[in-house]
Structures are given as C-alpha cells and as structure tokens.
C-alpha cells in the first residue's frame, strides 16, 4: 500500500524544476490539483497557449505580446523592459517554448520579472551588500594545500584573474589557504562597493544573481568587465570539479547537466547586466576629422539601446562624404560598396 502512495503524479519531472526565489515566470495562478491527489502533487505544466510573440513599444519601454495579450509579471504588473535587445531576447525565449512552457529555461524572463516585481523588496544597498558578502568567501581566493597538482592548477588559473582585478581596481585581494577564508582589507571592500553602486537597480539584480551562481565576486567582475567569457568564468568557478572529473571521469547526467545549467544562468545574468547598464548613441565620424565617438557609458537610469543607423542617416552621410561641394539636395545614386569608405563608429 505504501508503494502506490509514494508514486508521483506525472513522474518525477516536476521535482527538478527549480523556481528561483519562489518565483515562476508563468502568468496568472497555477491550476489547482484535483482533490483526490496524493500528499505531494506537483502543479500541472502550462501548455503553450499562444501562437505568435511580438514586441511593441509602450511609454515605459518595450512590451511583449503573446498573440494579442500583453505579457504580465507574476504580480500582474505590465512587463516592460528598457532595452530593445532585451525585449527581443525575452520574446525569443517565449517563442522557443514548444507544447509546454518550461519556465526553468526562461532565465532572462525570470530576471526581468524579479527586477520589475522585486518580491523580496530589496533596495540598491541591500543588493550591493548581498553581492559583496561573497567577497569574504570568494572561490578564487580560497585555496587548498594538497594535492600538489590541484594547488598548482589553482595558482596558474586563479592568480592571473586576481592579479587582473587588483590592477583594474587598484585594490589588494590576495588568496589564502586558511579555513577562515581570505582577509579582505576594508579599503578593497569600499572600492568595490562604490564601483557596484554605479550600476542601476536592474543591473545590480543581474550582478547579484551571477555572483550567487559563480560563488565569486572576482569572477563576476571579470565577466562584466569583458575580461572573461562565460565559458571561462564557469570553468574557473568549477575548477576543482573539472580537476576531479579529469582524474576520475565525467558523469554526464550529473556533471554535464549542472555545467550546462550553470552556463545558462551565468550567461543570462551577464547578458542582463550588459543590456541593462548601457546606453549608446550613434555619432557619425566624418572624414574631416571632425568629432567622433560612440559614447558607451553607464547611465544612472536604464536607457534605450540604439546601435542602429537609421536608413535616412546613412544616406545623408553618404551625401556629405562623397559630395561636400555639391548641393545636398542633388540626387546621388551610389553603389552599396561606397559605404565601406564611410567610418561609422
């Protein structure tokens, strides 16, 4: 009798869904399980109920439309993102769902929902504090003493990253083999906290997420400063595990499974940080040497990403470059290849 009671409905699939912080990316309430269900009944998976996913621009930002309905967050707020690239990526996530909606694959959507709803109600300082807390037990700073090959591997792989971070921010981080972890000087902490404070709230959600996945502040800084790729950062975070896999063998259904999951989450977090923390404007570089530049800086508030040349602007530039003395109203028909001479930055 006890065996049939322990059998799970729908197999064990739903145990492996890991909602982040109790948050699911699904719209609306989950359908209730029927009354005669067992003690544990996982929620039924939502089927894909829409055909088309499209993006529209509202007054607060870009919105996602599933068929004709607007996408909403779990707390029923309207889902708006400041950046078009982020909106396109989220729409692609929703569009890639087949048959059932697997919310555990939609990392960007989940991050946007967390930023919009802020269910734990954390303000900027709390997010910075949560991220900086990892500095005391940073993965790349905690070293082993034996076996010798692992010690050397850690030294060869992790020391350059720490050196880069120390040079980049002008701080001392160091590493330690003691059980208490590295001792981070207060000045280091101040410098890094003030650096984090220059990001807006959305980007900080992403940063805190990446730090908690990689278990390392230094690796996250390397990732957001474009020093490390996602694959490299994940490998460095899992260095000891990679060492043991090399020695004892790889178990695909555990090691590879976790590796791909970690890569997906880290990539989503890193992309989210970059897309939420940049603003760019297009300035045409004219051959007279007048002016140039693509000011890519960090805004205090999220701004739209507009890397595109408007079609009109391109035509205008061609006129200026190729015929400075000619009346701009003069119609010039130029082959496409002439655009190569134009410096666009």
């Amino acid at each position: 009798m006890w065996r049939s009671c322990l059998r799970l409905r729908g197999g064990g699939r739903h145990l492996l869904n890991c909602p982040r912080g109790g948050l699911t990316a699904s719209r609306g309430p989950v359908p209730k399980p029927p009354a005669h269900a067992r003690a544990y009944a996982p929620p039924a998976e939502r089927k894909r109920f829409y055909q088309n996913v499209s993006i529209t621009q509202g007054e607060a930002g870009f919105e996602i439309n599933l068929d004709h309905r607007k996408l909403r967050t779990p707390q029923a707020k309207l889902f708006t993102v400041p950046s078009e690239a982020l909106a396109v990526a989220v729409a692609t996530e929703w569009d890639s769902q087949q048959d059932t909606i697997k919310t555990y694959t939609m990392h960007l959507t989940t991050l946007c929902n967390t930023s919009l709803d802020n269910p734990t109600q954390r303000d900027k300082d709390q997010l910075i504090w949560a991220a900086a807390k990892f500095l005391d037990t940073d993965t790349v700073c905690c070293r082993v003493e034996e076996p010798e090959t692992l010690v050397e591997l850690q030294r060869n792989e992790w020391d350059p990253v720490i050196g880069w971070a120390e040079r980049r921010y002008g701080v001392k981080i160091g590493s330690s083999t003691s059980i208490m972890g590295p001792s981070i000087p207060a000045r280091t902490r101040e410098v890094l906290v003030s650096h984090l404070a220059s990001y807006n709230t959305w980007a900080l959600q992403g940063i805190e997420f990446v730090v908690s996945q990689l278990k390392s502040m230094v690796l996250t800084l390397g990732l957001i400063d474009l020093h490390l790729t996602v694959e490299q950062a994940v490998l460095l975070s899992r260095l000891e595990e990679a060492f043991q896999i090399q020695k004892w063998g790889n178990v695909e259904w555990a090691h590879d499974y976790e590796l791909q999951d970690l890569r997906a989450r880290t990539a989503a977090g890193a992309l989210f940080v970059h897309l939420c923390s940049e603003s760019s404007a297009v300035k045409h570089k004219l051959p007279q040497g007048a002016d140039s530049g693509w000011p890519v800086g960090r805004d205090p508030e999220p701004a739209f990403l507009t890397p595109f040349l408007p079609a009109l602007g391109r035509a205008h530039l061609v006129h200026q470059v190729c015929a400075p003395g000619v009346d701009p109203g003069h119609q010039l028909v130029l082959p496409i290849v002439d655009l190569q001479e134009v410096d666009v930055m």
Partner: protein
Amino acid sequence: MAALGSPLRTWRGLLRELRYLNAATGRPYRHTAAYRYLVKAFRAHRVTSEKLCRAQHELHFQAATYLCLLRSIREHVALHQEFHGKGERSVEESAGLVGLKLPQQPGGKGWEP
C-alpha cells in the same frame, strides 16, 4: 584572457541556434525578430577604422554571451529529457526488473477506491 574567437564563428553559431529554435515551429528563422535584430546589429558595427573598437568588442562579447545562453539551454534541456525526463518506473515495470509479476485481482485491491 578574452578568448572570444572570431566574430564570424559567433555569427554562424547564432544562426545555427536560431535554426534549431525555429525548426519545431516550422517558421523560417529569417522571419524572426531575433534574426532581424542580430543582422542589423552586426551590420551596424562592421565598418570601423579603429583598430581597437570598444563598441565592436562589446557587441561581439554580448553576441558570444547570447550564443552561450542559447546553446547551454538547448543542451541542458536535451540532457534533462534524456536522463531525468522519464520519471519513475511503474510498479509493474519495477517488479519485472527482478523477474516478478504482480498478481491479478479481478475484484481490485481492498483499499483502492
């Protein structure tokens, strides 16, 4: 240590991932918003005279990150389907593993509804 590789490789990888994503829906991937956006972004950043163009590097980094995201999600779901997606065996199958068969009880077991 930014071993990004060549932009062409990233671009090809992105196209492949978009193709996989749209294979099931049947719609050609060239009509998706993601494809159009990527084409515009890559074209806009292609022409520059600077040897070390920061914006170009940033775009390539973001593209490589997005490629990593799509690729790892696809492989994670494939691994999940293959190893963790089957659920538990039924009681009949488990009994069959050790060569036993469940008894047939035409009246049903006493405790089942």
